[in-house]
């Protein structure tokens, strides 16, 4: 498979996380999390509600500041960066797909404006070019071109989520954080979205950190898997290996809890 070749071709990680700890007072958000993410690699983070996976993701994306630990992106220490540099990274090299598209979209702005916002934020000032890029991206996420001037409010849940993905990917980020991207969608829409995501990740060579409690999602998308419980990583490894031969008691419980249809 091509992405395996890509992974082995580069031996410097894109994102290095070491000893990341975030507490809420006396309670642990996530504790002592360490991992490397290589270019083109998809890392899944699974665990039950309250296991610290969303806390971890928001620390990685710079929405929260961890108490301890180190995050290095492409050789730069993210936590030591100035806020302006970090936010610039957040709208150029990074992307963040929210679980609820309402959090990630501007609901009062047309689909084209939503996709174009990141381009304008990095200095695009040619209306025709911005609109052409927006049209292209709507096509890539399977939204009809004649919906470009509609507001996201007029879109279905699945379309909103696809629009959010287009809006995030338009500046060609290298690292994408996804928080339950398929949450709240019905299964057939989920399947189409997963298909789309898989295609985009493969074609664009994206590195992805994806948080979910849906094991089917990580089975399809993730190369590697991290299982979290109580804020700590209890098991990690290749996705198929973790899911087919779980070692930790909690992972075994998690895998056996999935309903077989």
């Amino acid at each position, binding site marked *: 498979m091509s992405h395996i070749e890509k992974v082995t071709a580069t031996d410097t990680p894109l994102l290095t996380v070491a000893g990341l700890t975030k507490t809420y007072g006396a309670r642990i958000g996530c504790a002592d999390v360490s991992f490397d993410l290589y270019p083109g690699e998809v890392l899944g983070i699974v665990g039950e509600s309250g296991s610290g996976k969303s806390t971890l993701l928001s620390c990685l994306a710079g929405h929260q500041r961890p108490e301890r630990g180190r995050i290095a992106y492409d050789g730069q220490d993210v936590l030591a960066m100035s*806020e*302006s540099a970090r*936010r610039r990274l957040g*709208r150029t090299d990074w992307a963040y797909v929210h679980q609820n598209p309402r959090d990630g979209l*501007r609901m*009062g*702005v*047309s689909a*084209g*404006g939503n996709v*174009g*916002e*990141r381009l*304008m*934020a*990095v200095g695009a*000032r*040619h*209306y*025709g070019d*911005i*609109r052409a890029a927006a049209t292209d991206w709507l096509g890539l996420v399977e939204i009809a071109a004649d919906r*470009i*001037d509609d507001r996201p409010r007029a879109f279905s849940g699945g379309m909103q989520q696809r629009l959010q993905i287009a809006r995030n990917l338009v500046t060609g980020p290298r690292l994408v954080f996804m928080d339950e991207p398929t949450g709240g969608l019905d299964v057939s829409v989920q399947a189409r979205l997963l298909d789309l995501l898989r295609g985009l990740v493969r074609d664009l060579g994206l590195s992805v950190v994806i948080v979910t409690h849906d094991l089917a999602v990580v089975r399809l998308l993730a190369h590697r898997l991290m299982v979290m419980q109580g804020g700590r990583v209890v098991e990690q490894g290749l996705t198929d290996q973790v899911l087919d031969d779980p070692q930790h008691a909690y992972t075994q419980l998690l895998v056996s809890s999935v309903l077989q249809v």
Partner: protein
Amino acid sequence: MNDATPEPAYNFAYLDEQTKRMIRRAILKGIAVPGYQVPFASREMPMPYGWGTGGVQVTAACLVPEDRLKVIDQGADDTTNAVSIRRFFARTAGVATTTRTADATLIQTRHRIPETPLHAGQILVYQVPIPEPLRFLEPRETETRKMHELEEYGLMHVKLYEDIARHGQIATSYAYPVKVSGRYVMDPSPIPKFDNPKLSDSPAIQLFGAGREQRIYALPPYTKVVSLDFDDHPFTASKAAHVCDLCGARASYLDEVITDDLGGRMFVCSDTDFCTDRQAHGKRGRLSAPISGGAA
């Protein structure tokens, strides 16, 4: 148009000295950082919010007894807002007032910049309803402040993009966002975009006061002010494609006045001082009264 001595019950220009000092500090800070919105402790004024309480406070803080004050509302010296504010300061400060732009040392304005070019030494005070240009796109004040701090102004272009997508052109015709000295994006108050070019490189000091929102910002003289636009949809200072029906001016901003219910209408300069001055100099428009015997 000179006037009585100020009412003894009031401090000079209504506000107490400590308040004026506080407002002057905000103004100085605003001038030091052009386009930056300086918070200030806006006071209750004896008029409702939306009637220019911000502008009135800035005017009160700037007035000295030697000043000659002009107040305009949408360009006119004779509308309720302009008349009552002018009378307010005539009563409480006893300053001289005028309607002539060239003679005024301080001009408080609502929604217009006078047609007559301003000169050095003049102060132009704007009344501002909503000082935050990003407000309708980003409701969170914490976030808009951060965006100003980090110069993240992509969102302002999203608004212009939406205009073009919906109307085929930038339909924003007033309160048109500008960038000041290559740094802060600023709402120039709801002046028509026709007036935007006059903001730039003006020899006068321009002060903006928002009373309800408690913000003051400023343009020092000769500040570079650029209206935002797209490369393929450049900014244009638009006005009605007509000529003033009273003075024949071609290049002044026009108001459309409905004159009957049969579709009759006329276009007149919104700047009344500019228009009467031109008429006094013998300029005539389509609907001017015929020249009385020998005056021409």
